[in-house]
């Protein structure tokens, strides 16, 4: 099943829009869509919380780059994509691997994404993942699902996205490719080369900059002379917009505008989502981060939990009652403070499916280490 969330095709399903929002993409979302979005926020948060806990118990091999508090960027950007679109998540975007195309049905077997089982198998370093635990859990992907595998080298997937876009267009496709990047990664040379190339060829590549105001231990003013990383777009003559990264609907609006722009052949653009990193750079950095990051900044971020922001909006719009909003209280809590009761049961069950699969999945066998350097039988 393919979603076509463009203005024309989705118009019939449009919910009533407040006057000021008339032309925003969100006005075409149904009430159910709004609730689905909230549920997806819970899912992303729960995945992260669960991993944080597992990691603390020493059960996981990799470094965890928590997406806690940045979930609105993922959910808001992914929600309007078509199944045939592509994404390239990086270290801090792990929920994206299984949340792509989620709108086409959490249990839809044809969903063009990685399954929760596959993702969990990789997290647990097992052979049940498409990459058979050959690369680190944050570098996964799946060609057949339209997910580009990243290397660790930041911004390195943007040219790949451009290439996919070029080839897809040549084949008559209309896929849009969404790449995710931290704001610090925009200083890489390959960011420049790839976006320049995409701009020259008006390729449907949307570059999302997750500006969480820190690149590891370096604050933004040492990475870039301006505050708004969207301004990087100006050097390429392409649009650069800014979204409130804690507000899933603002992200949805800005990204959908960029996606529509791209799909209609106008070319690439940049969407900067201002957001906030809840923890250290990785889980190994939590203690040090507490020292290098000003307390006020941490507080300021904590107070804008994307789940809370979403809920108030839904209540305001009348899609959620106050009582319903109080039911699951995952927001404004650290991972350790949450329990399974803070999340909708279907979210907990979904992840459980993945973890159960992972735990049963065997380790890859040693000899696989020597395999697949080349495709044989050329």
């Amino acid at each position, binding site marked *: 099943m393919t979603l076509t969330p463009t203005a024309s095709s989705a118009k019939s399903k449009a919910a009533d829009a407040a006057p000021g929002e008339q032309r925003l993409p969100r006005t075409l979302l149904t009430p159910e869509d709004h609730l689905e979005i909230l549920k997806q926020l819970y899912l992303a948060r729960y995945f992260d919380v669960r991993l944080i806990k597992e990691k603390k118990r020493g059960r996981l091999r990799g470094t965890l780059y928590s997406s806690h508090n940045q979930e609105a960027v993922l959910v808001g950007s992914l929600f309007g994509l078509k199944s045939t679109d592509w994404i390239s998540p990086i270290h801090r975007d792990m929920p994206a691997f299984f949340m792509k195309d989620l709108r086409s049905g959490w249990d839809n077997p044809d969903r063009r994404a990685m399954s929760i089982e596959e993702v969990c198998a990789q997290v647990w370093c097992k052979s049940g993942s*498409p*990459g*058979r635990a*050959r*690369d680190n859990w944050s*570098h996964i*992907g*799946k*060609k*057949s699902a339209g997910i*580009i*595998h990243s*290397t*660790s*080298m930041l911004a*390195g997937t*943007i*040219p*790949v*996205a*451009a*290439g*996919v*876009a*070029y*080839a*897809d267009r*040549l*084949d008559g496709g209309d896929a849009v490719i969404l790449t995710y990047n931290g704001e610090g990664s925009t200083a890489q*040379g*390959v960011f420049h*080369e*790839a976006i*320049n*190339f995409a701009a*020259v060829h008006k390729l449907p590549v949307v570059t999302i900059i997750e500006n969480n105001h820190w690149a590891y231990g370096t604050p933004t003013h040492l990475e870039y002379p301006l505050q708004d990383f969207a301004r990087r777009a100006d050097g390429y003559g392409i649009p650069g917009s800014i979204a409130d990264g804690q507000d899933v609907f603002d992200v949805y609006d800005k990204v959908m505008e960029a996606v529509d722009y791209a799909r209609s052949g106008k070319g690439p653009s940049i969407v900067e989502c201002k957001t906030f990193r809840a923890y250290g750079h990785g889980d190994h950095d939590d203690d040090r981060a507490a020292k290098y990051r000003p307390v006020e900044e941490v507080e300021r971020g904590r107070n804008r939990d994307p789940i809370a922001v979403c809920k108030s909006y839904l209540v305001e719009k009348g899609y959620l009652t106050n009582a319903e909003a109080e039911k699951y209280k995952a927001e404004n809590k650290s991972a350790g403070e949450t329990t399974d009761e803070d999340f909708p049961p279907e979210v907990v069950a979904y992840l459980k499916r993945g973890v159960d699969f992972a735990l049963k999945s065997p380790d890859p066998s040693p000899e*696989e280490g020597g*395999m*697949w*350097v*080349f*495709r044989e039988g*050329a």
Partner: protein
Amino acid sequence: MATVAHEVGIKKNYLTAIKEAIYEEMGLNPGLISIGEDIGILGGAFGVTEGLQAQYGTQRVIDAPISEAAIVGTAVGMALQGKAVMAEMQFIDFISCGFDQIVNNMATYHYRTAGEVALNVTLRGPAGAYGGGALYHSQMNEAWFAHSPGIKVVCPSTPSDAKGLMKTALRDPNPVLFYEIKELYRLRDIEEELPEGDVTVPFGQASVRRAGKDITLVSYGQTVYHCLKAADILAEQGLEAEIIDLRTLVPLDEESIKSSISKTNRVLVVNEAPKTCGFAGELVARINEIAFEHLDAPALRLTRMDTPVPWAKPLELFVLPSVNQIVELAQRLIRY
């Protein structure tokens, strides 16, 4: 295209051979895209892609910005989406600017994905010294890539090998780095009639360019000709050198090397790249592993000194292997 149609009885140069291969493959495979700096409107710095864009259009023959990392990275993306890609580095020296995308992204994609994604990308470009190109238009940097698992490395020395190997490269589902020796591009001496029809040369098979019983000279690319000249001189002294032209470095034809050494019991590897950690050293190590018991003298190598390639002619010749040096070393090994 008159320039590329097969013509019986006509000798063709190394450049034309490569050009023909690319033309033919672009014709045979509509999913093959060519990308590189100045390959379209101009037809390439050396003219390898002359007329290609006129024939196959601007969509399939892309004039890229001066962005080696983007060229490689987009090639990876196109191949991920199922295309075959020929990507030209204007000089192989500039490959350093796209290095990360090659060694960390392209080379490893198949490995990381446990075989889901194979990338049919051929990176090719003019390489090699002896032409006054100085530090940045003379490099042979194949060792960097031979040391990066997941890339096949090819370097032909004759027109027919160049054509057949290029066709194989453009069909191989794996990344291939294809070293074209620019000093051979238009060398009259080596022109030859190309085999008729769709003839490929397989990877991993060396070619014995001259048979001999006294010493084995292993080489590829330009230095094959140094070896051939040295063999002539040695022959005047009654010494018969066998010359192995590897043609592909990865995969390597160990069998041919071994069987030659089992006959000659002596081997000299000749190579124009810098000595330390070059492919010549690799060959010496391999030979030790596969043919030590046949050696009556140490397996030696003759390479460039551990220097860049300098510009002025006396300097350039000083640091590079010469025919005389091959003769002397061969004599020394035979006398050993």
